[in-house]
């Protein structure tokens, strides 16, 4: 204690001066008698003393388990074994204490100590409110919680207001003076992501970062995936807008009005803050709050699991024989119970109304049925029975004016062990006129296999590609008020996808696949073919939201070579070709390192060639000898080369003269 002081006193000279003399003799560090220390330990070694073990240390390893059965000494051992079995799942129990009353009967709560706080936290998370049996429910708390709750101040203090954070304009991109759009290009798997402004004459790159990302439905946010969760970026600088902590989130979906985001991480291991039943989470985008979490679906389902109504008011989830509709902002089940629909197979919300369409599979004597259900009052506004149904697909027109249900029907059904085999397939398109009184339904039947169906997003036409591979046809139908759909045009061509312009009228027909790549740009007002083009091995097509541009792309996931994208005008004029690999059409100037490397290679090679050329010259005499003194060294200088006229027989005509 206070050695420094005493040392100074005994040996007042600076140590360096008398280092030599003091080397042998030990200085006297003892305090002289009657010396009173005038400096406290806290003052001198405050930082060390703070680390001194305290009595309360290790309390965070301790949990209190309340709600245990009260047993006498004769059954204590049994209780102990049960408790140990349950709680040693979370880590090694180093200490346990079963308080008893004067009769030796346990008093209903016990103390368990783990070797570290993580185990304790895990145990609390997992076993709190767990039922042991009918009468007993564990109430598990950390020992430190008692202190925390005991220390809550009596008087409530209002929270200090947070300083106002200036939010950048999220819709800034809509104010672009030239109304340019932006697009996103992902390169490689997580190599780079670029945001481009589709400006004229050349697109401008706005941002680049090495992640994977998607746009929100209205384009306000850009969502990027990270190991720790999902982040949203917005504003002119693409500043971080919100982040959602959800480790290993793989799937996200936005609600249509961008109020909510759903994240799903199917693979992440359960952690105390993200247990197994919280793998599917709905967040509020603006506040970043977790609104509700769900356990992961038991079986494989298609993403998105939740489908939202157009105004974010409802979202629904398909279950076995049940349709669960939830309400926002409460995030509870609508009317506190799911809608029981035995045999429900699929459903889809109308894009403009709070109406959903679902279909129910055929069951012995009960026909299959397509139903339109209005929410929240749950009235069936229309339903239609269908027979011999193998499968149904629900296609809403984007303006909500029409609904088409593509019905795959069969003429023969054969049961092959557990599998059902359909044969003699034919296809019906049931068209629901949503805007007319009582919703009349028309039907279009096609006997050939269907490749694709698509509604005109704005308008009343739809296109069907049908026929087998050798003989494909594209039929365009027009739907009129009070009339059955009429065939307006039939075209042939080997296309297997239809892409309508978001603004309607224009359509791109495309052929995907290994040998595909054909494109046709069509104006459906008068069915003129505006252009026929080709993008070899193309694997995807996107219209820009205004319907002015089309992008065709070859994804590197599909194809290793010639990845890239082309931008076309809606008329099929090629605007730009971008290749991300292989040979670019424009030749970029070489980076300096490459030039240096090549120069080095060329220098080495030239040296080698010089040596070889010298050796070759030396061998000249021998070569001449071998080839009978005809000099064949120089190219084209064959000694006996002479101008030669080569005559070719071109054509023979025989004219027969009588």
């Amino acid at each position: 204690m206070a050695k420094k002081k005493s040392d100074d006193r005994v040996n007042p000279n600076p140590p360096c001066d008398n280092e030599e003399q003091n080397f042998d003799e030990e200085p006297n560090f003892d305090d002289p008698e009657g010396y009173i220390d005038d400096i406290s330990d806290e003052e001198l070694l405050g930082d060390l003393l703070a680390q001194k073990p305290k009595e309360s240390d290790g309390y965070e390893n301790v949990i209190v388990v309340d709600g245990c059965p009260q047993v006498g000494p004769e059954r204590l051992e049994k209780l102990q074994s049960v408790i140990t079995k349950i709680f040693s799942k979370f880590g090694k129990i180093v200490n346990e204490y079963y308080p008893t009353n004067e009769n030796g009967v346990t008093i209903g709560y016990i103390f368990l100590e783990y070797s570290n706080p993580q185990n304790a936290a895990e145990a609390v998370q997992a076993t709190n409110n767990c039922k042991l049996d009918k009468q007993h429910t564990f109430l598990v708390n950390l020992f430190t919680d008692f202190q925390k709750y005991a220390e809550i101040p009596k008087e409530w203090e209002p929270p200090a207001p947070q300083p106002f954070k200036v939010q950048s304009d999220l819709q800034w991109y809509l104010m672009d003076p030239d109304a340019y759009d932006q697009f996103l290009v992902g390169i490689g798997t997580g190599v780079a992501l670029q945001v481009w402004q589709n400006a004229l004459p050349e697109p401008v790159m706005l941002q680049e970062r090495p992640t994977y990302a998607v746009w929100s439905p209205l384009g306000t946010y850009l969502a990027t995936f990270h190991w720790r969760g999902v982040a949203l970026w917005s504003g002119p600088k693409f500043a971080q807008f919100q982040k959602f902590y959800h480790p290993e989130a793989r799937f996200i979906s936005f609600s249509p009005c961008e109020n909510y985001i759903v994240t799903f991480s199917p693979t992440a291991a359960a952690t105390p803050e993200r247990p197994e039943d919280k793998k599917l989470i709905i967040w509020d985008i603006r506040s970043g709050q977790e609104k509700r979490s769900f356990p992961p679906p038991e079986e494989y389902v298609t993403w998105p699991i939740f489908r939202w109504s157009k105004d974010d008011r409802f979202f629904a989830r398909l279950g076995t024989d049940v349709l669960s509709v939830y309400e926002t902002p409460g995030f509870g089940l609508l009317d506190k119970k799911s809608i029981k629909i035995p045999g429900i197979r699929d459903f889809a919300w109308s894009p403009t109304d709070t109406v959903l369409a679902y279909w129910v599979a055929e069951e012995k004597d009960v026909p299959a049925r397509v139903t339109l259900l209005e929410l929240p009052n749950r009235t069936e506004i229309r339903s239609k029975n269908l027979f011999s149904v193998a499968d149904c697909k629900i296609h809403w027109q984007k303006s909500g004016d029409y609904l088409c249900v593509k019905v795959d029907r069969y003429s023969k059904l054969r049961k092959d062990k557990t599998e059902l085999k359909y044969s003699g397939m034919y296809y019906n398109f049931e068209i629901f006129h949503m805007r007319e009184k009582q919703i009349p339904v028309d039907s279009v039947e096609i006997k050939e296999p269907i490749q694709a169906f698509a509604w005109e997003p704005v308008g009343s036409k739809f296109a069907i590609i049908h026929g087998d591979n050798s003989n494909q046809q594209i039929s365009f139908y027009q739907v009129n008020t009070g009339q059955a759909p009429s065939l307006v045009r039939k075209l042939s061509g080997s296309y297997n996808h239809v892409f309508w312009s978001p603004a309607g009228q224009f359509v791109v027909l495309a052929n995907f696949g290994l040998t595909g790549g054909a494109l046709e740009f069509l104006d459906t007002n008068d069915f003129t073919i505006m252009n026929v083009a080709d993008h070899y091995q193309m694997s995807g097509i996107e219209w820009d939201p205004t319907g002015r541009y089309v992008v065709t792309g070859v994804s590197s996931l599909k194809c290793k070579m010639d990845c890239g994208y082309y931008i076309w005008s809606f008329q099929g004029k090629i605007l730009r070709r971008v290749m991300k690999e292989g040979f670019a059409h424009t030749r970029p100037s070489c980076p300096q390192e490459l030039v240096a490397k090549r120069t080095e290679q060329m220098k080495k090679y030239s040296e080698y060639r010089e040596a070889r050329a010298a050796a070759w010259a030396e061998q000249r005499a021998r070569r001449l000898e071998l080839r009978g003194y005809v000099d064949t060294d120089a190219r084209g200088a064959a000694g006996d080369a002479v101008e030669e006229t080569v005559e070719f027989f071109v054509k023979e005509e025989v004219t027969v003269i009588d």
Partner: protein
Amino acid sequence: MKPLMLQGHERAITQIKYNREGDLLFSAAKDSKPNVWWSLNGERLGTFNGHGGVVWCLDVDWQTINLITGGGDSSCRLWDLETGKNIATIKTNSSVRTCNFSFSAYQAAYTTDKAMGHPCEVFIIDTRTIDDSISTAAPILKWEITDSKVTSMIWGTLDETIITGHEAGDLIQWDLRTGKKIHSVKEHAQQINDMQLSRDGSMFITASKDQTAKLFDTSTLELLKEYKTERPVNSAALSPILDHVVLGGGQDAMEVTTTSTRQGKFDARFFHLVFEEEFGRVKGHFGPINSLAFHPDGRSYASGGEDGYVRVQSFDQAYFDYTFDYNRE
């Protein structure tokens, strides 16, 4: 420019070669009749009838007087080019895989397959006077190859050595005075499909099933350069005028039907000789390319494919204008 399509074979092309002047193009195929064409316009000059099966290899001497062919009918034949007559037929024990005239054409070499209980052998024959007596005359030299069989062969510098490429990827240089190995290297992991000399004979390029082509020094077998692709290389040729090489290949014939022609697997691919960088591709074949040859003037090249076509492609001006950036001294 539009390529010339030479359609004269019924089956896959096995080897094509220009003569030294470049006016004639010779082609051998899996049908039994090698063809000769005018390289200028693609007109067929004639066929060489006599083989009874696949013709694996052919070579023309430097004066364009004689042609040597070897085939699966266990024969090596010599032809008079002026008349197209079969002058001599040397019977062998198994298929003749490779055959070549020496630099002087005073000698020729051929190798046979290890098959039907016979070993793989190399033969050197005297071709100073070519007449029917060759058919029965004993070879000047012959030796057995005990390990993996010879799949390609070229003559080395002057008439002193030959170099053989093997099924296991080895390259061996043999001294013809003694019949002994001088050098042996193993730079390839799989079969060497083709070897072609540079114009002055000081270097040669190998094409291997291990998806690479490599450039070697003829006298030392030193590895100089490597050209990598993503598919087996069946043939590689060196440009006589520029520092360019062309590589051709594709999948094995048995896998071809499962592949689309438009997947670019059957392109002829151009690399810079020194920088080992690819700078161009020519498509056209709908089967793997089996043999490639540059015209001696370097202004066109020919390719023969599994599809049975020979394509003669002239280079556009853009090919000659294309240069690589590097500091010239």
